[in-house]
Every structure is written in structure tokens, then in C-alpha cells.
């Protein structure tokens, strides 16, 4: 019995010894709970916020661990109360984030010493440095030139100034090709607004044409320069042109604090609007390098139609939906010094299995931006879309 007890005690001691081999669970704090007492705290809050909330770590080539090793000592040398150091910190943030593929990504600061500095937008910086860079087409081109030079008499155009300026133009080309341009997605909200607004009138005109034109030969949806907006507009607009669910891809969100902790892929689709019928004529969507976010999702939706075509340029490449951090356990967050780290809440994968974040969605028919033609009142991209319908 003595030996029995001896072995039992020995076994328990060994077990307890091994049991202490587990790693400790680190305490991970909410980025906006850090105190802006020093640059080290500012860096830790931001770096950890990105570590836990950025949704593209599985495909992004930025080495975030290397960024930690490289920039932690650099930030530690800075003084948050020194304006020169704050500006130096700004450049470090710019360097750290330069390669991030999230093309919604935007770092804005709340420090008065950075009031004259632009927010850090890696995708914009990359575009700006690209040889193919061009400014967005001025909405005036659609408002004045397209309506005057391409649309039949009876077109409608209008704008409304709210949180931003919303511009829309609608009409027909050769009587049986419908055309709709709008510069941002807020269509449903403006349409359902109790207040009369000029964009609502344009929308009503387009929907009337869509409903009542018996011999539609084609539709041109023009989202060039469209910066995106409300996701509900996808059903509101494209849902009026289909009669059954239209699958365009999948989304997924973060599911834990690990960089590779994701939810399964959830189908992304357009739901038909009640009371509308499917359009069988060709639908051509015009988009360019300044078509962003919801504009790109709409391109993907149209491209998923058997009668859908995409003419223009490769889109911006920021197509992950955005909402508050709490809803999908990831995405945008705030931290000391940084007003907002604006980043996608979900990753979007197109129906072909590819993620076009950071690279943009490619057109069926590429027609490059032609400033000279635009200045002469011509629109080669629109002409190519019309040729595709004819």
C-alpha cells in the first residue's frame, strides 16, 4: 500500500507539472480603450486593432508581424507632444499601410497637428502613382454632354445636395435603348424620400421607361465615377430587371480575433423586386477606374446576368461591404490619435471564385479613358456600349 501511494503521488506530481505547459491567454483590449499617453500606446492600439479586425489577412501580402517588429521601436522613440514627431508618426503609418489591398482603406487622424495632412489612403496612392492614372470624369459630362449629345428628347436630369451631391441622368437613345447615370448609390432612400428631389424625378422617369417601353433593345447603366453607397440599392435597381434570384458571389466576415478566423462564405445575391419583369435585352454597365464599392458590386451583378455586359475600365478594387465593427466582428475601428481606421467589414468573392479586392473587376470590353474625346463632347466608352447593343 505504501508503494501504491508513492506511485499515485508521483503520477499526480508529473501530471500537474505537465499541466503548466499551456500558454497564457493574452489580454487583448479594444483599440479605442487604449490611452493616448504615448506613441507606444498609439501604435499598440492601432496595430492590434488591425491584427484582429482586418478582413483580408489571408490574401494580403503585407507582413504585419514584420511591421510590428520594425515600427514598434520607431514609434517608441517618438514624443506625442512634439509636432514634428507626430508628423513623423504619420509617415510611419503611411509606410506601414502602403501595401494593404483593402481599397476602401482610409486612416484619418484627429490630431490638430495633422489637420493639414490628407487621410492615408493606400489604394488612392497606388492609383496616383500608376501610369494609367486619370482623374474621375466630371459629373458635368454626364449632366450636360451625354444628355445633349446622346439622349433623345425627353431626358431627365437632376441633382440634390445632401451629405454629398447626388447627380442622375436618365433617358433613351434611339428611342428603345434606356440610359441611366448616377454618381452614388442612395437611389432607394432618395426615391422613398417624402421630400421632392430632382434625383427622385430622374429615377421615376427611368423606372417608367423600364416598365412601359415594350420593345427595349438594351439598357445602359452608367456607374463611371460612382463612389458607391447603399447596398439596398442593389435590389432596388437590379432587382427590377430580374425575375429570379441572381447570385453574384459570396461574402465572409471575421469570426474571432485570429487573423485567419473567418465565417464560411455566405451567398451574395440580388432579390427580384415584386411587380417587375425580367429584362431579356442586353444590359450593359459602364464603369471605370473610379467605380468603387457598390458600383463594383452592381457591375458584378450585371455581369452575372446571361444578358449582362461590362464595358469600360477595370474598376477601383474596393468591393468589400462596410458596416459597424460590432455587427460582423471586424472591420472599421477607432484608436487613439486615429479618428477612424476605415476598412471593409466583409470580404467579397465573385461567383468565379476570385477575390477582386485591390485589383479591380475587369471589363468584357476594355475602352480606356479618353480625355481628348471627352473634351470634344464625345464619349468612346458609351459609344462602345451602344455598339455592343446594336
Amino acid at each position, binding site marked *: 500500500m505504501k508503494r501504491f501511494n508513492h506511485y499515485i503521488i508521483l503520477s499526480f506530481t508529473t*501530471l500537474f507539472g505537465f499541466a503548466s505547459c499551456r500558454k497564457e491567454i*493574452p489580454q487583448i483590449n479594444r483599440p479605442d480603450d487604449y490611452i493616448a499617453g504615448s506613441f507606444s500606446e498609439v501604435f499598440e492600439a492601432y496595430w492590434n486593432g488591425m491584427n484582429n479586425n482586418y478582413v483580408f489577412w489571408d490574401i494580403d501580402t503585407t507582413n504585419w508581424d514584420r511591421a510590428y517588429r520594425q515600427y514598434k521601436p520607431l514609434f517608441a522613440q517618438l514624443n506625442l507632444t512634439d509636432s514634428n514627431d507626430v508628423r513623423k508618426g504619420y509617415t510611419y503609418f503611411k509606410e506601414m499601410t502602403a501595401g494593404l489591398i483593402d481599397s476602401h482603406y482610409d486612416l484619418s487622424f484627429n490630431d490638430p497637428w495633422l489637420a493639414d495632412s490628407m487621410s492615408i489612403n493606400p489604394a488612392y496612392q497606388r492609383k496616383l502613382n500608376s501610369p494609367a492614372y486619370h482623374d474621375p470624369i466630371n459629373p458635368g459630362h454626364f449632366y450636360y454632354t451625354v444628355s445633349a449629345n446622346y439622349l433623345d428628347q425627353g431626358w431627365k436630369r437632376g441633382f440634390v445636395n445632401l451629405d454629398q451631391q447626388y447627380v442622375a441622368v436618365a433617358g433613351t437613345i434611339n428611342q428603345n435603348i434606356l440610359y441611366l447615370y448616377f454618381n452614388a448609390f442612395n437611389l432607394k432612400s432618395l426615391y422613398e424620400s417624402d421630400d421632392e428631389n430632382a434625383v427622385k424625378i430622374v429615377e421615376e422617369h427611368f423606372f417608367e421607361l423600364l416598365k412601359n417601353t415594350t420593345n427595349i433593345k438594351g439598357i445602359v447603366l452608367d456607374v463611371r465615377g460612382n463612389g458607391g453607397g447603399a447596398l439596398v440599392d442593389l435590389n432596388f435597381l437590379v432587382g427590377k430587371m430580374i425575375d429570379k434570384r441572381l447570385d453574384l458571389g459570396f461574402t465572409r466576415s471575421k469570426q474571432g480575433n485570429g487573423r485567419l478566423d473567418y465565417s464560411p462564405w455566405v451567398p451574395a445575391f440580388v432579390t427580384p423586386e415584386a411587380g417587375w419583369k425580367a429584362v431579356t435585352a442586353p444590359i450593359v454597365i459602364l464603369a471605370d477606374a473610379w467605380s468603387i464599392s457598390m458600383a463594383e458590386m452592381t457591375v458584378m451583378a450585371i455581369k452575372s446576368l446571361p444578358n449582362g455586359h461590362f464595358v469600360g475600365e477595370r474598376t477601383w478594387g474596393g468591393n468589400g461591404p462596410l458596416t459597424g465593427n460590432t455587427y460582423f466582428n471586424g472591420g472599421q475601428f477607432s484608436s487613439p490619435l486615429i479618428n477612424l481606421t476605415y476598412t471593409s467589414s466583409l470580404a467579397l468573392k465573385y461567383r468565379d471564385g476570385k477575390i477582386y479586392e485591390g485589383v479591380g473587376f475587369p471589363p468584357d470590353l476594355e475602352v480606356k479613358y479618353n480625355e481628348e474625346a471627352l473634351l470634344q463632347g464625345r464619349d468612346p466608352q458609351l459609344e462602345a456600349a451602344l455598339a455592343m447593343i446594336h
Partner: protein
Amino acid sequence: MNYRLFTLVILFDLIGRNLKAQNRLEIGIAGGYNKNYLHSSTGYRAFTTYEAESGFEIGLPILYHINDWFAMQIEPAYIQKNYQIKRTGFFEGIYQKNINNYIQLPIIAQFSFGGKQLRGFLNMGGYAGYWTSGRVKGSAPNVFDNRPEIADNEEIDHFLQVYQRYTYNEQYNFDSRRDRRIELGLLAGVGIQYLLQEKYRFFVEGRYYYGLTDLQKKYMTNQTPRYHDNYGIRIGCLFNLKNIFQNERSK
């Protein structure tokens, strides 16, 4: 008697003859119900928690008695180590059950005490497991599915009113950058056993598996580790080969 059955009988007979010289070798079958907890943290994730999930295990214990009170045991087994990540409060209804299938080999030292027929025992040892496959079941909000619309005067009680529920039940895809499929750990068990006719040893055991290896490889800085804690109740029966074969031949 078909060929396979004949071979099996011959094999067992040979084993029986060869083990005559050995004192007490027992083989058997055991199985039971378990509850698995993920020892980890969801950090500052709002309304998000890990919860235990039930599963089962089935094993083939092989026990060798060194003396009256001490035996060594190995037990190749299939075991589920399941857990759930769920959201609470406003986000109630969003969850994912992770069903994790392991093949496991425990090596156990068994200390027993008590009478000849009815004995208590204490198991202590370690195990190595391999995460063979997994399944994820759950429901998630679909940001692209926001119908039916919420009326202006309607209150919102939960998130799945805003976005419709997408339910899924699919195979878990391992990510070789993150998932560590080999698991090492410790185990401890306590139970009672009843010896019937010197041949059959029935037992009931409460067992605890304590994972020592993180379920994830070290792939990121400030990584939150994840370990399995598995509590189970199991029953089984061990067969004394020597006595079974002795009696068979004496018939």
C-alpha cells in the same frame, strides 16, 4: 464460415495460446458521452462567447495488469471535441458549432483498489491525437439578404431582423497556415469496475482530457491560444483473453 471469420478465430486462438504465459491481458470496448470546452478567449468581441458542446467517443482499450493494483493501458479511440462560438443579446441566433473528429491514442497508468470483484480505479496518463476532419454548422447574417423590409415605426429586437439568416452545414476546411492537427495532452480518470466470472470486467469511468497543444500553429503575434478541455463519462467492458480462451478450449 467465411474466410475472414475463420482467420479471425484462428488469430484470437493464437493470441490466446501465446498469452497463456502472461498474467492478465484484457482487451475490450468502451464509449461514452463528453462535453468539450474550448479554453480560449474571444477577447473584446462584443456579444461573442465560446460555449461547450457535447460529443461522443468510442475506443478499444487494451489493459495489461502488472500486479494487483497497477496496470498499463492503451486505448486507440475516435473522439469528438466539439465547441460552439455564439453571439448573444441583440445578436442571438448567430452561432457556429465546430464538430471536430480526432483519432486518439492514450497511454494510461491505472491504479486500482478495493475488493476482488468490485474495485475502484484511478487512471492517469497522456495522449496523442490527430484532428482528422471537422464540420461547421451554424447560422450567419447575410448582408445581401435584407428582406422583408423593416417598417419605419417597427422596433428592432435582434440583428437577424435586419439581415436574414443564412444556415450552413459544411465540411471544415483546414488551413495549413493556422490549424495544428496533432494534439498532445494529459488525461485523468476515476471509476469503478466489476469483474464477472473472471472473464468480463465492466467499468464506468469519468475522464478528463487536458489538451497541452494549441489548436493553432504560431502564425501571428499576440495570438490567443486555444486548447481543448474534454470531460466525459464512459462505460466499457474488458475481456480477459486468458480466461476466455482457456474456457473455450476446455469445452
